[in-house]
């Protein structure tokens, strides 16, 4: 088994890197409790104030709580939709007998689509959305975010789905399992850790997405990044309020990470056969 010194070295390295990672994050969060002048002069000791959080959450011109809710709706929906479509399609492409060219073209096309910069996409999608009246709706943004993250989810789930030993699937087939049963009880449980990681990333990308969200939303449907961007104004960057808003915006993703991963994996592995 592992020697104690090995264990200490491992933990030591992890903690050291963790500290480096943590310093800017702590800085952001504590910046939310400072006054602007305190932040600009970077004084080490400061008296905390709550005005930034109050301004972000409760001021008349701020809809942060509404934005929060909107981001949650869009984030959770698009993640669920994206992962469902991606997992099904990835399994289909790699496990069902599709002609090779179909697989290569579709995956290649997805990859190329991922290279498109958001500035080029936002305008085109706005025009499309306006034609069907979806330019200020959750549905429009959810679909847009799903498509934005689909290529990456597709490729990643491709990796994780292929790690399920094909013999297990064949065994289940022999036992007469239909496709849904096969997916639910054999493939998903084994791909669960990958699925969870993919879900977290998709949610985070959707949560932090700015360019498309800006184009496809107005006041009532605006998301958190649009709200945060409002603190970077033409003549000043309201650092402390931006930091307060950022601190608040980290929370859901963090909660999802800590709790969600365990539950996603557990929920999916329940019902694993054999």
């Amino acid at each position: 088994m592992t020697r104690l010194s090995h264990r200490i070295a491992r933990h030591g390295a992890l903690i050291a890197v963790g500290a480096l990672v943590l310093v800017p994050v702590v800085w952001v969060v504590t910046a939310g409790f400072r006054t602007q002048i305190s932040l600009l002069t970077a004084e080490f000791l400061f008296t905390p104030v709550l005005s930034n959080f109050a301004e972000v959450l409760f001021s008349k011109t701020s809809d942060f709580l509404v934005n929060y809710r909107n981001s949650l709706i869009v984030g959770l929906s698009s993640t669920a939709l994206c992962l469902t479509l991606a997992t099904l399609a990835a399994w289909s492409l790699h496990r069902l007998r599709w002609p090779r060219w179909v697989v290569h073209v579709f995956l290649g096309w997805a990859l190329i689509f991922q290279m498109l910069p958001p500035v080029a996409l936002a305008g085109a999608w706005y025009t499309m959305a306006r034609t069907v009246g979806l330019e200020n709706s959750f549905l429009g943004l959810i679909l847009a975010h799903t498509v934005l993250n689909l290529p990456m989810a597709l490729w990643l789930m491709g990796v994780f789905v292929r790690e399920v030993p094909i013999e297990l699937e064949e065994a289940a087939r022999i036992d007469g399992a239909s496709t849904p049963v096969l997916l639910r009880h054999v493939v998903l449980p084994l791909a669960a850790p990958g699925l969870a990681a993919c879900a977290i990333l998709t949610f985070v990308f959707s949560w932090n997405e700015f360019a498309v969200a800006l184009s496809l939303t107005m006041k009532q449907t605006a998301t958190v990044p649009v709200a945060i961007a409002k603190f970077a104004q033409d003549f000043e960057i309201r650092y402390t309020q931006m930091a307060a808003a950022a601190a608040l915006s980290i929370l859901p993703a963090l909660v999802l990470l800590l709790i969600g991963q365990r539950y996603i994996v557990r929920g999916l592995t329940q019902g694993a056969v054999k």
Partner: protein
Amino acid sequence: MTMERQRRATRRQTLVGLGASGLTLAGTTMAAAQAKVAPITVVINQSPWFDSFCKTVELYEKETGNKVELDVNPFAGSLEKQRNSVRAKQGQYDLLIMNSGWFAEMYFGGFVEAITDIDPGFKLDPDVFTLGDTVFFDPAKKTMSRGGKLMSVPISPLIPVLYYRGDLYKAAGLTAPETFADLEANARKLHKPPRLYGIVQRGARGPATVSFDFYPYLYGFGGAIFKDQAAGDYKVTLNSEQGRTALDYYIRLAREAGHPKTAAMDQADLIQNMVTGKTAHVMMVIAAWSQMDDPTKSAVVDKVEFAPTPHAPGLTTAPGLGHWLGGVAKNVPDDRKRATVEFLRWYQTKPAQMATAQAGGIPVSAAIYREPIADERKYRWMKPLAQSLPHAISALNFPEAGEVIPILELGLNQAIAGETNSVVALNSMADQIHAVMAKYGYNTGKLPNLT
């Protein structure tokens, strides 16, 4: 949310009115006269002066019963949203609050409808600053001068002014600088690096960073980028003798009385240096005034004074415009256009402008600057601003300005960073600007190269 609920939400008043104690409405005589009109949607960006605009709109709603919906966007996205809306068949926004960076695009592209076309009887209040005559536009000649149609009403007249440390001036027995020579002398006197810099200027390359800082110097020395924009003469005159004097001065000031890293300074750095007390002067847009006296944002509360930007002897101050204009979108129904004009008609009146000033905004009407409010300590920036506004310059009045600005940004940045000298920089910039103007078919020409 379904489309139906969206529509209802839009019509609902989204701004809560202030309590009666906040603003005295009784003084206005407008209440009874205003007609009931269609609700309008305004696209505007979040900014220091937005709060005051918000309060002014609330007052309008209270007085007239007309509904105004504000769609607030980050500055970084305001242009994108406006473009999306005006280019669609049916616009989402009725009143476009356009920045100096893109109103030319809106005018030239035919996206803004002339106010006098919607309401021939509309008269711009004679007290309202016309801000380099940029509120006018001649669609045939494609120039901005008084002979053109009235396209917009000024919303926020933002120009740079000189912020200086009144307390340091008093201690050193100095008076507010008028000429560039004065400024240089004062800056040198107070320059005690690294604790205190004489002046901090912008030098960084950005969307409209160093070029915006340079305009007051260029035009203040009598130089210009083009010969006569208002007449459609786009001969490039950047690399004139005055241009060289201005750039040499700018660089000398930076090197001998300024920040050692001027080539990397942007707006945020300027503000940071001023509020932390590290510089004696900045030339900065007036909108930052409110930060100076806010104890949560500034370490120099009540120590900052204001003056118009300096000029060469015999010439006038010449700050560059970074203003906001309000125009009516063309692709919206007629009743909403008329409603928007009603709002603009109300906005330029003296009571409305006074409300803006009291809410912390920057009025566009000279009438306010003659009122007692301009003598209050809190509003000590008003008199210098009022002095400067009639001379404000709009440097680039055409839609392809977006291609010219990066040329200026890069060229000036290189000169300030010491990578090129001023002569090479000016000649190169003039060359490239000339190429752009020629490419788009403007009436352009060039000066012989500086030597």
